[in-house]
């Protein structure tokens, strides 16, 4: 077994475990947040501070009776939760969470992500279609229309950073505010694009105020009305993971990825200092670099030498991962805050909003970005690469194609 393959398998396992835990605790955090917004306590019975609530929920969901509607199209009915779930999980396989911390470093990650997120919509549409029931049917109709209309705006907003950095790899796009890509004029398009992306992501993942596919006051539970037990649980799982994934994409695209910058001066051409590797800097500062700076990893006697490097975590990797998770947490909490605040839109208003406002604005932004890139090219595009500790992308796009 080659080291690469083993790395992918082990990392895949770790990612899956982390994601499942993240989903379980996201539901818990969301419930506690909503409780906080509405003067309640929230789940606090199971375990200390209710921390075992997700476990109890999981056990309950698994032990529930499975019910399949008699008239349902059995194959599609069984398949659709898997599609929804797998597509959302797959999205995370493409997103690096820290320097060197990723499952796969795909040079065309953005494209693949858009594809996967569209694939996830099939799960929801088929679920409603195959249930042979009215509420799921209406829910899937709504999903269909909503996902198609907001995918366009979503893709357009993603184009803005892609045009600026000229790359489809998240590792490059994360550098957008720093290094050769930086030009203060880009903020003119990046800020609105970021806001637009958040709105479109809300719609894409079916969160309030765009939770029409499953709005409980109207169509009970939308596309998953007829699902029960674990098959039901896969839909919310997919939804939460998608929310996490879109937060991660937003961090990469509009919040500087896993890098951390601090403002240095009012010099607009290069106002940021990169302190992405803050753990390493901290260790150096304390004077422990000799003892702590080498990468951490599993015990050497457990993992043979050629595999060890790919499974270890350097200080840079650790600090970038923590930075990334913190940025992501802010966005996820924002999604939850929005849920506690806003009422739900109506179906036709949602469509109007998507097609008549978001899409034109997205198009204008893409056009503006193209103009900006031509007339105000990235600051250092001609200069030599002298940006200090800028993390180099591990796989260059050209390299991949050259090696085949």
């Amino acid at each position, binding site marked *: 077994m080659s080291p690469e393959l083993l790395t992918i398998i082990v990392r895949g396992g770790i990612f899956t475990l982390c994601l499942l835990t993240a989903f379980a605790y996201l539901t818990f955090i969301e419930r506690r947040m909503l409780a906080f917004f509405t003067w309640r306590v929230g789940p606090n019975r199971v375990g200390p501070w209710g921390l075992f609530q997700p476990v109890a929920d999981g056990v309950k969901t698994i032990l529930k009776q499975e019910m399949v509607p008699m008239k349902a199209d059995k194959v599609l009915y069984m398949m659709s939760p898997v599609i929804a779930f797998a597509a959302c999980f797959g999205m995370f396989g493409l997103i690096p969470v820290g320097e060197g911390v990723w499952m796969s470093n795909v040079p065309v990650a953005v494209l693949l992500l858009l594809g996967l997120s569209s694939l996830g919509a099939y799960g929801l549409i088929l679920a409603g279609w195959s249930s042979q029931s009215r509420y799921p049917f209406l829910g899937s109709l709504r999903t269909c229309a909503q996902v198609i209309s907001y995918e366009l705006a979503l893709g357009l907003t993603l184009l803005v950073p892609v045009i600026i950095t000229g790359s489809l790899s998240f590792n490059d796009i994360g550098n957008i505010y720093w290094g050769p890509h930086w030009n203060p004029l880009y903020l003119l398009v990046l800020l609105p694009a970021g806001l637009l992306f958040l709105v479109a992501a809300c719609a894409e993942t079916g969160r309030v105020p765009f939770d029409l596919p499953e709005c409980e006051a109207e169509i009970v539970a939308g596309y998953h009305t007829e699902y029960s037990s674990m098959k039901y649980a896969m839909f919310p799982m997919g939804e939460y993971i998608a929310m996490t994934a879109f937060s991660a994409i937003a961090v990469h695209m509009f919040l500087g990825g896993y890098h951390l910058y601090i403002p240095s001066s009012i010099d607009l051409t290069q106002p940021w200092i990169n302190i992405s590797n803050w753990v390493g800097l901290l260790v150096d500062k304390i004077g422990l670099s000799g003892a702590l700076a080498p990468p951490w990893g599993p015990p050497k006697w457990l993992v043979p030498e050629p595999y060890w490097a790919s499974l270890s975590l350097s200080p840079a990797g650790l600090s970038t991962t923590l930075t990334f998770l913190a940025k992501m947490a802010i966005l996820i909490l924002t999604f939850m805050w929005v849920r506690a605040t*806003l009422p739900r839109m109506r179906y036709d208003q949602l469509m109007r909003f998507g097609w008549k406002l978001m899409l034109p604005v997205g198009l204008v932004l893409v056009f503006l970005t193209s103009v900006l890139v031509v007339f105000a090219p990235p600051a250092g595009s001609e200069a030599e690469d002298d940006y200090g500790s800028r993390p180099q992308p591990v796989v260059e796009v050209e390299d991949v194609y050259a090696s085949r």
Partner: protein
Amino acid sequence: MTLSSIRRVEKRYDPLLTETIVVSVGPQHPSLVSPVQLHIQADGELIERVTVEQGFMHRGIEMLCSQRDWAGCAALLSRTEWLAGMNGHFLLSSAIEELSGLEVPQRAQFLRSLVLELGRLSSHLYWFGDLGLEVGAVTPVFWAMREREPLLELLDMLSGHRWHGAYIVPGGVSHEPPAAFYQRLRAWLPLMRRRINSYEEYFSDNAIWVNRSELIGVLETDYAIKNGASGPVARASAVDCDLRRDAPYAAYGELSFKVPLGEYGDALDRFRVRFMEMRESMNMVEQCLDALAGAELGSARLVGASLDSPSLAAGIQGKAGQDPPLQNQAGQDPPIQIPAGEAFVSVEGPRGELALSVVSDGGHGPARVHLRGPSMYHLHLLDELCRGYLLADLFVIYASLDIMVGEADR
């Protein structure tokens, strides 16, 4: 061209010959608090017809009333419209007073008005929380419940029951409220005024809510009058009717208040009218408090008035030790007779005109009771209001009508 036809989508020629579907909503549905079944014939999401099937909550209250004594009748009536149960007590008490020719003291009249307005506030608060839920906002319902809690505690202080307290009794009110009641009510009012403003702003400053309710479910004035709409629903459609002003009962003749009217009769107007009503209610409560604190208005209850029904007499006894002594100890007074006859009384309830027709044969209880509740009429407005709107609008319209199924089914 009427206003409603501007907005509504007419059925177009359909070359694909698509079928309409019938979506059956209820009796168990997340957004229907009480059970009613709506068969919605829809072309996709567009509603073509709504058929209301009711009776899931029929408890036979009118029949039960005619088999119970007067006290049992009062308890049953307060459970028809349970969010403002004092209306039922008031209806029966004033019917008995009409039958036996009792004159209620002035102080009791003011206390009755006070309690009825508190009931209206409590009911409208509940409605506004429910409205939030229908449009997918989860927070307002908790605001509503939070504001309602002190109100219910105040009602509990009066009668020992949060919802169905038999505070209004034939001949007045059961007893003078404790001093702490006045203090707490006075402290609650300014707080509530501020919060009502912020809650209304939450909705009316929110583009999503305004878009969802503006020109949705338009009830035209003529249609409202023809179909027996009353209360805030009729007033939102610019029908200038309010029993408190048109046929004053209790102390409403001496209170000054405005009757808020809507302009278009859409869901947004019904929402606005109810919020304005809540403000007016608070003004009225304040006026009642001033009147009660000021001049000598007589006793809170007609001395010597008691009923021959021991259970009602027992029911009006306050909690021992906390309340001021009752002005007349139940059971000690000579029982009054409720003569045979007929009485018709009506009251402006939180949802509209509640009326009660009672036939007494001189016995222990009523021989026949008939109740007129607004929810029945409003429930059957749904078909007209929802036609041509989307499925999502139905629930906004339903919430804006503030229908209480238990009162429609009885």
